[in-house]
């Protein structure tokens, strides 16, 4: 998804930015710098844009690999393989389907999974391509789940379970249900995309539903 405005903005020739330059996207529809960077890598073999992406993600991917391998050499191999895929397959990235970070994360996860399986020298086996669909399911359920749960009565029952939520989800659910802020307000306040607010809310609600079920049994 490319438009001329974004092209023009990048024409100045950006230098690779330091890692502290975190994108501050406040709206779902405003693409962040990483989606732009990937688009330029795909269309123009833009090495500056690629270096920018690389310097942000590579150290974080390395930490992600270290967690699993506990071994720097393999973690670096995972980073190299992942970032090579990002370079080669940039043209397959579709910003309408999700964030650049999600795309890169899933590549790294799949590379890591297949490396681990190979290490266990298993042939003829389950591989990342079996497990994770590359793309989107056609019939996603409508986004109506949260509405069903949006009642004050229920919230009283759920509130004791808030403490067990992961901090990021708890923060969002408290702002929405206890402080009664709109999704957009929460998005602005926390400087996270609106879509992230909504997905954290849904995840929190599903966790709470599980906690409720557990309490009933």
């Amino acid at each position: 998804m490319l438009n001329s405005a974004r092209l023009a903005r990048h024409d100045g020739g950006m230098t690779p930015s330091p890692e502290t330059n975190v994108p501050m996207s406040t709206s779902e529809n405003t693409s962040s710098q990483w989606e732009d960077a990937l688009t330029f890598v795909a269309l123009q073999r833009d090495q500056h844009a690629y270096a920018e992406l690389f310097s942000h993600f590579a150290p974080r991917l390395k930490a992600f690999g270290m967690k699993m391998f506990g071994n720097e050499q393999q973690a670096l191999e995972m980073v190299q393989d992942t970032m090579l895929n990002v370079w080669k397959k940039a043209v397959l990235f579709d910003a309408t389907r999700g964030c650049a970070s999600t795309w890169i994360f899933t590549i790294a996860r799949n590379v890591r999974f297949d490396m681990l399986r190979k290490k266990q020298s298993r042939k003829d086996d389950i591989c990342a391509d079996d497990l994770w669909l590359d793309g989107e399911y056609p019939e996603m359920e409508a986004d109506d789940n949260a509405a069903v749960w949006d009642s004050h009565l229920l919230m009283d029952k759920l509130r004791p379970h808030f403490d067990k939520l992961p901090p990021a989800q708890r923060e969002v659910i408290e702002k929405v249900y206890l402080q009664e802020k709109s999704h957009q307000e929460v998005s602005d306040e926390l400087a996270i995309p609106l879509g992230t607010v909504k997905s954290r809310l849904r995840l929190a609600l599903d966790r709470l539903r599980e906690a409720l079920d557990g309490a009933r049994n």
Partner: protein
Amino acid sequence: MAHAIKFHPSMALLEQFAEGTLSADVALAVSAHIDLCPHCQRLNRDITADMASQLEKAAPKGSPTDWQDMIAAIVAQPQLAKSAQPEPVQAQPIRVNQREFVMPRALQRLAAEHGKWLQLGGIATAKLPAGAGHHVSLLYIADDTEVPQHTHLGLEMTLVLAGKIVDENGEYVAGDLLINSPDDTHTPRTLAGQDCLCLSVLSAPLQFKKGLTRLLNPLQQFFY
């Protein structure tokens, strides 16, 4: 949805699936469930996006690395052309007992390489080439058949792929994911005029040492 899937993997299982830390055979059952369940498709998408955004925002730690050589080696490589997207392959149905079944996406490649069907009464099983243990198999149960009591050391995951099966606790349709511990005794059976095809995953208990009780949670029902 023509029918409601009632038995879903727990959030803990879905999170480990998205993170890629679940053992491969269990992940395969979760993946096939997701293929059949729009509710978990959405959850999986959200969990993955959330994990990715946490990775993106994380402060980098560990010793600094000099990446210049790696970057140079990568950008010297050719890039894919737009036309390089792979064509989707047409799934071949699985045949058993003069019946044909289309597999969920996650199982298509492996199911095409299934082993010989072993038949015992109304029950037939065929192993899938999924790792050394060979504990991933398709399980076909003809109509009006009782599955004999069986014991196993680890967890038994059963994903209904087609048809219907019932036990003392309820009935299970395509997409329902059942997880039974060694202590569970239940007698699943098919009803008259309704056969059933399942994916069965048996796991060694060692793989579940961590968080066993959390993994047992998934039997909760989402919709009541």
